[in-house]
């Protein structure tokens, strides 16, 4: 996917992405302070909003190949299982019961499979929305702070799931998170945004451990990163 000279203007905010390239099968991170335009950039990439100008070359990907998971997930007013299988249902795919059981069990949701999904706790809802986004194996998955409600164990589980899938069925991921440990463990390449622009980009270790941009340096000042090598995916 290639993006060039993309602009989107709102009343009090303007986004400008001069250039961005996402290579298939790689995991990218997008970081930056609140209100810097990360979500807008992701929505533009997902095709959920239209740019005012610029180009997005999705290289043959259609809307059905792309999905986006949000910090506040939307759950259908139905059971946990029907939420999970919704993307399959609309594609006319018969859900694989073994896969459903395995996915829900992994996330600790199997016992709630027939429960009313919007009645789950916020963390459980988040897990369900991530499972649902992954179940139809999208080619591009945008994760917008969707790990934020998860406990460390659950977040680790989804990190592992993403990395394991990359071995068997690689997809492109663009992950936005304020907890940089997720970015550090998952992403090979990182974009840093500030006030609607990408101000820094590069390999995860360069961005996280040797920042040059002053805004990035300031952003990372309070980050507590583990010493292990970043970019497990690289």
């Amino acid at each position, binding site marked *: 996917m290639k993006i060039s000279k993309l602009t989107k203007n709102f009343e009090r905010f303007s986004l400008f992405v001069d250039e961005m390239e996402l290579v298939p099968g790689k995991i990218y991170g997008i970081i930056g302070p609140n209100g810097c335009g990360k979500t807008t950039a992701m929505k533009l990439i*997902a*095709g*959920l909003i239209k740019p005012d100008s610029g180009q997005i070359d999705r290289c043959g990907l259609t*809307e*059905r*190949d*792309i*999905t*986006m*998971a*949000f910090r506040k997930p*939307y759950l*259908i*007013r139905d059971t946990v299982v029907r939420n999970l299988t*919704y*993307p399959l249902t*609309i*594609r006319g795919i018969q859900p694989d019961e073994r896969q459903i059981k395995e996915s829900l069990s992994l996330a600790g949701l199997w016992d709630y499979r027939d429960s*009313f999904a*919007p*009645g*789950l*706790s*916020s*963390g459980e809802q988040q897990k369900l929305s991530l499972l*649902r*986004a992954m179940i*139809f194996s999208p080619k591009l998955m945008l994760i917008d702070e969707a790990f934020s409600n998860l406990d460390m164990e659950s977040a680790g589980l989804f990190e592992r799931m993403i990395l394991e899938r990359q071995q068997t069925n690689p997809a492109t991921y663009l992950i936005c998170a304020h907890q940089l440990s997720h970015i550090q463990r998952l992403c090979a390449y990182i974009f840093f945004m500030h006030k609607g622009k990408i101000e820094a980009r590069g390999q995860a270790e360069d961005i996280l451990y040797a920042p040059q941009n002053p805004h990035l340096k300031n952003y990372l000042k309070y980050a507590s990163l583990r010493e292990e090598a970043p970019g497990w995916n690289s």
Partner: protein
Amino acid sequence: MMFEILDAEVLGIITLTLRMTLFSTAISSLIGIPLGLWLDSARFAGKKLVVIINRTLMASPPVVVGLVVYLLLMRNGPFGFMGLLFTFEAMVIAQVLLLTPIICGIVHTASARSAEGIRLFARTMGANKTQTQLLLIKELGNDIFFAVVTGFGRAMSEVGAIMIVGGNIRHQTRTMTTTISLLRGMGEIHQAIFLGAVLMLIAFSVQMTADFFRKRERASDENF
């Protein structure tokens, strides 16, 4: 006492009232629900004005609506040739004019509150337009149901408009509300109270059914 009151004529009145209410609610729902959904998603100049006009119509006095329909259907009126005045159809037309803005308004308000999130979600899942519309109707089901129930209640309890266009003709256009009004005028208080109680019982049953369905889908606000 009850068997005396519940004679064939009263049963006919109850049946006619239910028929009129069901017909007018069904027609109003068929118009009002898609209109309410469309009003939320459509982008056009003057949309705000249309919404305000609809809200005004939601509170329109039944006697005024009745008068308008009367003027349209009277022998010298534009639709006088159809011969509908003082018929069951005339009462349904008046009811539809009263109910449609109410159903449309409730659906539009609910849609404006939640539809954007639902559409966004549907797109992230790869749903096409038809699948998105179906999901929208399913997700707004509670609100749509509430709109229909409200319309049903309004149709059931309405008296002003149907009195004008129906004429309260015995065995033809006499409904429960117009009968109660007539009985009160004649001093037949017992029968009026009985019909009032039946009316309340039907309204209560409808609300109980609505509540049953609403409870089933109540989301938890708790974070366990």
